[in-house]
């Protein structure tokens, strides 16, 4: 099986290359079928690999080739698949496949179809390589590659100015994160002398060798990369704008897969983060803040895709929060469930937009339930899952995150973020059902004479139904809480012997060197009632009472939000307009997305712009360009002179050879021989 690992990413790559080369001329609309088939094969192989890993409970690896053999810096391109990778493979390929199928219908008739179906498998390839990488450098390459694909796909409608701006914004904001990631990798290499993840000499085994400050710096730099890609505050502003891309792209890249790369990175580098209390604190705080902030913004947005986008931000905040409180499995679990229900939400939103003839403003919708029943029911399922209503997918993972944060080692931050998460859960239900009620129920706020809403074609509704099934059911792989099928499968990655040793090592280091954090950690652990009697790091065993009570709390929060939304937007018992008037200040903050875009514009973009203009007008044109042009002009002039040596005369050529020979012989005989000694 290990020998076939390389086929999983390779097949989409080949499809992408073929479509890129022959899509326009030969394949035409068949490009879509080809790409979809390639991703289907890739999906099939991923399933086989996952089953294989599930059976053997062992990671599989494949060496492809030495990429950079250069002294100490020996980078090989290896593929590595353990349980975590297997989960990611399944998510990426499954959502990828369904989005491909959906796109066949969604993109039909688009003149640039082949481009779309060249970039999409290219993205799938890059994402699969990212999760299969076994060292930081290869990961970084594909980290950039998925960013590139994202850029290309956001600006797919490149004639639209806003799409181009959004693509640039996404790329530039991500650069900030990528810079951090790049620096982090350099620090890793500087500290450990390798960038490989695993094995005796790998980074993860040797985290204990580095000083606590170093490891904190590394962890924070890596997290900066994760923040960019996973759109965490303060680098979150690109994601809502990225909705300029075609809707399937939003579903695949900006909801289900690429944005979770940051979560995957932190989870993969678990041992690095575990070694730094500070880093964990920052990760948890940022996650919680993002979850809350995005939820409040989502309450007031009127663009259907933007609401879903802010919801994505919020859910990514949940995952980050879980990572920061050491609830690794919960984070990845939420990643999985989120991929399905958020993918579904986006595809559903796309279906609505498609049926409404490219109308995205929810104020111009309403009562769509009777026009597009399949979209409605699937969208409802996804909304329920996102809101965290038992027993749908979102409930299980979100509840686990809230519970995990409450009982984590990291206190008091754990309990604070847990409360934030509960509040956000309430808000989540509120904005999700605001969306459902405003779009599908109530009065038709469009002119039926002009707009004829219709259900989308079969090829689009089929993926909706296909995604609805996991949206409803996938939560059960995590049931009962903490002991589901999912937990048993992934557990070896996060709580294995090595992790225990790493943990023990940090305890020893902490006790010897810097007692303060160790003390804190110990007391925190005691307070949470975790069992550390044998010194090993094990997942907390929440009591049944805790499980039940947190289940009740989060359900109450979610249902509360749902009921409130029902009262406001369905019954009309409370007027949303009046509410907005009364809390004018809060409404404005939310509506203007906490003024982040304005803030960045004032603080960063404008100063940069004016300094850039200065650099361009003065430094660039007058100094650098003048220099470059001078050098180029000088070279050209020298070239003109020198070319005249080529006279076309054999006699001159022969003379030049003779001259060269005479000079060489003369110099050498005088300088190096014993002639004049």
């Amino acid at each position: 099986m290990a020998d076939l690992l390389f086929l999983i990413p390779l097949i989409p790559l080949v499809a992408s290359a073929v479509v890129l080369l022959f899509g326009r001329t030969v394949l035409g609309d068949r490009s879509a079928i080809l790409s979809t088939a390639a991703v289907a094969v890739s999906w099939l192989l991923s399933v086989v690999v996952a089953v294989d890993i599930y059976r053997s409970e062992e990671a599989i690896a494949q060496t492809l080739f030495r990429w950079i053999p250069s002294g100490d810096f020996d980078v090989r391109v290896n593929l590595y698949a353990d349980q975590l990778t297997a989960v990611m493979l399944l998510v990426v390929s499954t959502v990828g496949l369904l989005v491909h199928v959906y796109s066949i219908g969604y993109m039909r008739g688009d003149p640039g179809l082949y481009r779309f179906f060249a970039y999409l498998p290219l993205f799938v390839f890059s994402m699969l390589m990212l999760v299969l990488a076994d060292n930081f450098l290869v990961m970084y390459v594909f980290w950039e590659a998925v960013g590139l694909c994202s850029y290309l796909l956001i600006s797919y409608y490149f004639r639209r100015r806003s799409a181009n701006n959004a693509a640039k914004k996404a790329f530039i904001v991500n650069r900030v994160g990528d810079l951090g990631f790049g620096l982090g990798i350099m620090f890793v290499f500087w500290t450990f002398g390798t960038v490989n993840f695993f094995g005796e000499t790998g980074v993860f085994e040797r985290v204990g060798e580095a000083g606590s400050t170093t490891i904190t710096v590394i962890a924070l730099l890596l997290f900066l990369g994760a923040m960019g890609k996973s759109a965490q505050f303060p680098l979150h502003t690109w994601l809502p704008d990225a909705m300029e891309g075609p809707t399937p792209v939003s579903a695949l890249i900006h909801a289900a897969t690429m944005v979770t790369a940051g979560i995957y990175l932190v989870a993969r580098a678990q041992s690095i983060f575990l070694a730094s209390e500070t880093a964990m604190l920052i990760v948890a705080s940022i996650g919680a803040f993002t979850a809350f902030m995005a939820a409040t913004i989502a309450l007031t947005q009127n663009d259907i895709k933007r609401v879903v986008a802010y919801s994505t931000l919020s859910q990514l905040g949940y995952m980050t929060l879980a990572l920061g409180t050491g609830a690794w499995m919960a984070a990845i679990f939420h990643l999985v469930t989120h991929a399905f229900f958020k993918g579904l939400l986006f595809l559903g939103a796309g279906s609505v937009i498609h049926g409404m003839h490219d109308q995205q403003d929810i104020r111009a919708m309403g009562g769509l339930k009777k026009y597009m029943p399949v979209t409605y029911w699937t969208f409802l399922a996804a909304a329920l899952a996102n809101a965290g209503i038992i027993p749908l997918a979102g409930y299980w993972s979100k509840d686990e995150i809230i519970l995990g944060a409450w009982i984590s080692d990291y206190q008091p931050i754990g309990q604070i973020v847990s409360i934030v998460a509960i509040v956000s859960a309430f808000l989540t239900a509120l904005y999700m059902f605001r969306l459902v009620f405003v779009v599908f129920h109530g009065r038709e706020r469009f002119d039926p004479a002009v707009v004829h809403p219709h259900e989308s074609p079969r090829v689009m509704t089929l993926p909706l139904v296909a995604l609805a099934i996991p949206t409803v059911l996938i939560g059960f792989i995590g049931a009962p809480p903490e002991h589901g099928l999912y937990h048993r499968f992934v557990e070896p990655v996060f709580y294995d012997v090595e992790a225990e040793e790493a943990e023990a090592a940090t305890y020893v280091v902490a006790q010897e060197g810097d007692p303060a954090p160790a003390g804190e950690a110990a007391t925190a652990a005691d307070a949470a009632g975790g069992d550390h009697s044998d010194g090993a790091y094990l997942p907390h065993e929440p009591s049944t009472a805790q499980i039940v009570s947190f289940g009740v709390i989060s359900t109450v929060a979610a249902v509360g939000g749902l009921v409130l939304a029902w009262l406001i937007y369905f019954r009309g018992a409370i007027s949303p307009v009046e509410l907005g008037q009364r809390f004018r200040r809060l409404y404005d903050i939310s509506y203007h997305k906490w003024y982040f875009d304005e803030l960045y514009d004032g603080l960063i973009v404008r100063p940069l712009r004016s300094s850039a203009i200065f650099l361009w007008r003065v430094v660039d044109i007058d100094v650098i360009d003048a220099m470059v042009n001078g050098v180029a002009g000088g070279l050209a002039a020298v070239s003109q002179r020198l070319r005249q040596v080529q006279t076309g005369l054999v006699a001159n050529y022969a003379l030049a050879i003779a001259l060269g020979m005479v000079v060489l012989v003369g110099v050498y005989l005088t300088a190096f021989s014993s002639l004049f000694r």
Partner: protein
Amino acid sequence: MEWASVAFYLIATVCVLSAAGVVIARSAVHSAIFLILCFLNIAATFVMLGAEFLAVVQVIVYTGAILVLVLFVLMLVDEDQLPDFHTGQPIQRISGLILGLILLLEIGAAITARSIQGATGGATPENVAAVGGNTQALGRVLYDDNLLAFIVVSLVLTVAVIGAIVLALPDRRVGINQRRGTGTINLGHPVGTDGIPLALPAVRGESPIAAATPGDLRPVAGERQIIMVRDPDAYTEVGQHDAAPDNRPLIKR
């Protein structure tokens, strides 16, 4: 001084002088005759070194066969149609002479100042005598030690023959009226013709290159008409520095 030495220096002097004559002589026929003289002297040197076989081969093959053939060809061709070998500028001749002299000096210095003596090879007089003489020794070296080189040399000759045939055969696929045409390639033209944009060969029939107007062909100061195939300028870019009027921008904006 021994007579042998006197004879050697005499032969060597004639040899060098006749070699110089090959280069200096204005007429190709004279050059060829000087070359015969030179080869004969080399053969004489071989005899003095005891290499009779080589000497005979030198006379029969080079002097007898090859050079006579060369003379034959030269006689058959009208001398006026041969390219002029001496159109170079005096500066070329002088600098060539100076460079040659310096090189001679350097080689002389190397010879006189060398400290290591040449190592003895396998063909010592005793060894040669043991196998029955010079010719036998040569045979052994040729057919044993240097067998591979000996075989490959035959290929070199094959290539030369093929090349000669290909280049001399008329073109099979080009029409008969296009086939004939003479052009003189230029190996040494006076620098004075540099100003001509693209001087062209006088070609009868249709030429692959556009026909020349008479004005393009400028006779050079009383000498035979030298035709330049092309001017280096025609193939290289004339930059802004040279301010050529027809210099259009490379990338249109």
